[in-house]
């Protein structure tokens, strides 16, 4: 299944990736080849088969609803590229 340049640009926008011209061309070609290969799953008639989201039979695993220590503000901000007081600072929208 071939994907178009417009689709590559659309997906890059959804994924917040500013691709270069070279990347757009290369990914268009490579993604087309990969989609062709993985699209094979669509050959199977799986109507009536339940999907598997997770390999273990677990559901509704609850944690105790009790406060416990967590990382403090300084630790949370320790790797921040930029901060102001106790906030992460980013460029204006």
């Amino acid at each position: 299944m071939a994907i178009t340049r417009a689709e590559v640009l659309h997906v890059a926008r959804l994924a917040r990736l500013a691709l270069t011209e070279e990347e757009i061309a290369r990914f268009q070609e490579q993604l087309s080849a990969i989609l062709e290969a993985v699209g094979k799953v669509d050959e199977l008639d799986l109507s009536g088969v339940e999907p598997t989201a997770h390999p273990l039979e677990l559901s509704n695993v609850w944690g105790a609803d009790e406060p416990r220590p967590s990382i403090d503000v300084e630790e949370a901000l320790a790797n921040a590229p930029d901060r102001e007081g106790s906030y992460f600072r980013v460029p204006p929208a």
Partner: protein
Amino acid sequence: MIDTLRLTAKEANALLTGGELSSDELFAAYRAAIDERDPDLNCFLHVCDESPGAGIPIALKDVIGTKGIPTTAGSKILEGYLPVYDATVTERCQARGLRTIGKTNMDEFAMGSSTENSAFGPTRNPWDPSRVPGGSSGGSTAAVAAGLAPWALGSDTGGSVKQPAALCGVVGLRPTYGTVSRYGIIAFASSLDQVGPVTKTVADCAFLYSVIAGRDPCDTTTVDLPHPVEIPEAEDLRGLRVGVPRELNEAEGIEPGVTESVQAAIELCRELGAEVGECELPRSVEYGLPCYYLIAPSEASSNLARYDGVRFGLRVSPDGIRAMYEETRDEGFGDEPKRRIMLGTYALSAGYYEAYYGQAQKVRTVIRQEFAAALERFDVLVSPTSPTVAFPLGAKTENPLAMYLSDVLAIPPNMAGLPGLSIPCGLSEGLPVGLQLIGPQFSENVLFRAGHALEQALAFDVVPPRLA
């Protein structure tokens, strides 16, 4: 003089408990081996000069969070990142006195099968430095093979412990999904990611698994082991039913030398007393790889959304927040993560979800059912771990699909959440061949028993001849 090339973790520990060596002396011996050999191999992204603990060293894949020790997942986008907490597996190792000797190289975000996708240069195979160690845990498996650590932890999403273990001639376990905590592990594909041991022997593997396994309140997908880990001792396979799935053993692209070693190991199972029979996995092998390459990239596209330049990691800072996100991600991610983010975003996007992700989840059910049927008749299934021995650097970097095929045999059981053990079973053209042992969920003790008995009978020499 300590021969770190040959010393197993069990032997290293015996030297400590017997008082023949101190923990510091042992640590120094492995540090010296790293200084001597790692400039050529590039197994480590970070080496620790000191590390708390009174036990033996361990190397940790750089996807595992280590408080105050750089953790990059092999990516430029996390260069300089210092975790503020330890992963649960890190804590559990430390609680047993294990000392972190360093963080090992890997394909960026564990995406790859050769460790060439690391942003910090490839790792080389200790058996032949012109070849790859496999991946994505290639730094961990090469470090153990080269005697730079007595053992290590890796992580396996679609074969990333098993396949590099095979290519480096060491033992690697991908545990049953849910038995090892993912808390503090940098996420790739959450329904598949699992941390596993890399060791020289099956007994060491069983021991290290016992250290890291078990329920963790911080990871709600974890469960307690239904039975304690048993360190294997038996040297026969009497009473064990060994299945040989035709499709996993006859898949296109398996090298003749690989088949030869694996066939010899299967014959050995018989000699050791196992009942050996054929079985089939008609759709699991044919559709396993396509299924994986829809599910894993889809989950990755979501998990990797957090790298946006706001809270940690790289920030490229032009004007405006949107440009900051897009430029940061374009500059910070390498080719393979970008490719997978694009693929996953596409597969999850409106209009394609049902045909791709939805359908892949149904294929996953089919794979589970096929393995369940085969494992009703057999205790263990065997196959090659990888279709090929270690390949030359650069051989597959231009063709992503060719690289993906490296895991065609390792992926199918992973989709079903099954454990898989890879042990070295021989050489082909002077390079190690890995045997994959697959069992039902929570059957690690059976895999250890079978792997240990085979290991004793095979007497594979884990030391690469060029280093001996």
